[in-house]
């Protein structure tokens, strides 16, 4: 078995949740593997992250360089190609950074790439068996990956329970490479923060959230009516924002807002993992969807198989009549 490396993403001096999830994933590939964390950045925040990681990882490779201050995937890829040994197995979170980094990394390393892995079953020789989802999470599939030449494996955030044992008492190694080895054709300029919008959906205890099932912009008023009757706020999934029917600030999901309501009423929302990733704090989830196969029914507390265009107005009337 080749060495396993985990690329750590971090912000404000704290490692991302994926840091310990990927450690668990690495041990599922090989329970006895000595797993090495790679962390890049610059300044005191990086030191803090690296020191904290040493509690969980036997070895932490720390790259503290100005060129790595912002995680530009093009730069990080160059670094990793420079420093990783042949046939390495690298785990990366399947988030907006990992999606940017990993497919190209696998080509440059001439290793095998597997995207968005939700579970790891077994390693038999160089044949790694994993589980992925396809078709917006409606079906799953077993994957066989030949990792004889190494692998880059992107792991879906939240799909492995974090390894919180802190049993490593590892060491941090200061590493560096020549800045001239990190020159790329893509320059990071700035991060433009999301606009606040007219309503702060993160402040509401009850959300009436709409998805594709609303079908038409004109139908949004049936969600507005229900929200008004409940004293709730209307939020939505990505397709509604893509269609420009509601502002981006109303979107729940990893690419939108993270919400922590008491009650989440998902109306005509299929329940992709990107959407569910924006719902925290274990709210009571009600799913209303005419497609009984929608993944939302697997994560909701209560499900109703119905067309929201009929169901929501009836529900609004019933609440008003109370």
């Amino acid at each position: 078995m080749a060495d396993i490396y985990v690329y750590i993403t971090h912000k404000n001096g704290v490692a991302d949740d994926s840091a310990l999830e990927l450690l668990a994933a690495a041990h599922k590939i090989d329970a006895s593997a000595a797993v090495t964390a790679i962390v890049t950045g610059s300044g005191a925040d990086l030191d803090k992250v690296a020191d904290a990681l040493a509690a969980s990882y036997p070895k932490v490779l720390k790259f503290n360089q100005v060129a790595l201050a912002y995680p530009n995937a093009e730069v990080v890829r160059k670094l990793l190609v420079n420093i990783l040994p042949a046939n390495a197995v690298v785990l990366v979170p399947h988030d907006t950074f990992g999606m940017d980094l990993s497919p190209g990394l696998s080509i440059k390393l001439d290793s095998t790439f597997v995207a968005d892995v939700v579970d790891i079953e077994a390693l038999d020789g160089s044949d790694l068996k994993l589980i992925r989802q396809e078709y917006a999470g409606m079906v799953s599939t077993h994957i066989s990956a030949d990792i004889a030449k190494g692998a880059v494996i992107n792991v879906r955030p939240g799909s492995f329970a974090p390894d919180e044992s802190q049993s490593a008492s590892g060491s941090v190694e200061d590493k560096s490479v020549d800045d001239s080895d990190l020159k790329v054709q893509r320059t990071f300029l700035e991060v433009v923060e999301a606009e606040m919008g007219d309503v702060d959906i993160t402040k509401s205890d009850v959300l009436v959230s709409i998805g594709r099932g609303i079908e038409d912009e004109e139908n949004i008023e049936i969600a507005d009516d229900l929200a008004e009757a409940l004293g709730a706020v209307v939020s939505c999934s990505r397709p509604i924002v893509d269609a420009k029917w509601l502002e981006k600030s109303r979107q729940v999901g990893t690419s939108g807002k993270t919400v922590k309501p008491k009650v989440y009423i998902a109306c005509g929302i299929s329940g992709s993992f990107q959407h569910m990733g924006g719902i925290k704090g274990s709210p009571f989830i009600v799913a209303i969807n005419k497609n009984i196969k929608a993944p939302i029914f697997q994560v909701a507390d209560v499900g109703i198989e119905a067309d929201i265009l009929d169901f929501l107005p009836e529900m609004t009337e019933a609440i008003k009549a109370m």
Partner: protein
Amino acid sequence: MEILVCVKWVPDTAENEIEVNRDGSDIERDDLVYSVNEWDNYAVEEAIQICDKVGGNVTVVTVGDEETEEVLRREMAMGADNGLLLHDDAFDGSDGRGIATVLKAAVQKGQYDLILTGAQADDGAAQVGGMLAAMLDYPYASLVNKIEVDGDTLKVGREIEGGNQEMNAIAMPCVLSIQTGINEPRYVGIRGIRKVASVEIPQQGVDTLGIDAAMVGAIGARVKRLDYFVPDLGEGAEMLEGSNEEIIAKLIELLKAKGGLK
């Protein structure tokens, strides 16, 4: 500007309930409604808008067969200038790397300043654009939701967590994967589709592209799908049954108990 957009004809998850077939070897393909991969429509629209502004041509390319060639006609009906079908039995069973290998050969046969893909397709891997860029040694940016042309450089926005946008300057030629919401893809009527129905679409295969057949298809694949299944995820939601009236009465009680209704 010469722009190549890589597109795919896929089962439409908004129009179909995707089910596993009897022996788990595939999804049930009978009566499936196919459409252009949603992300690809945004990529083609973006390419057309760029060429409207700075001049140039949009070519759409797919790895497929005579049936999936329909995706090229749809995008040409939208306004793409040329279509290119990469078809060979040797491509069957390709993994992401195999598809990228085929596309790389097609890119090298042309002269493109910009290559766009959708951010992902039906298998949700989001991998071909990044692989293609690495094979070509072009810079890459994924999940792009804004493009501004500035000479030989593009200013691109990437969608990152929390609805924030990461701005980058990227040199051309480059590969970008396009996120939904970057624009509003134009609607194509039946008349537009009829107009391009009989346009001859050029085809290329292993020989004309100069590809080593051992690097693509099932033979070249290092990642293989063993089966499809629907995972047993425990109980799932408690389904409320009965008439709408009964369901609503139960739901109101539940909402009261959970703090959703005062």
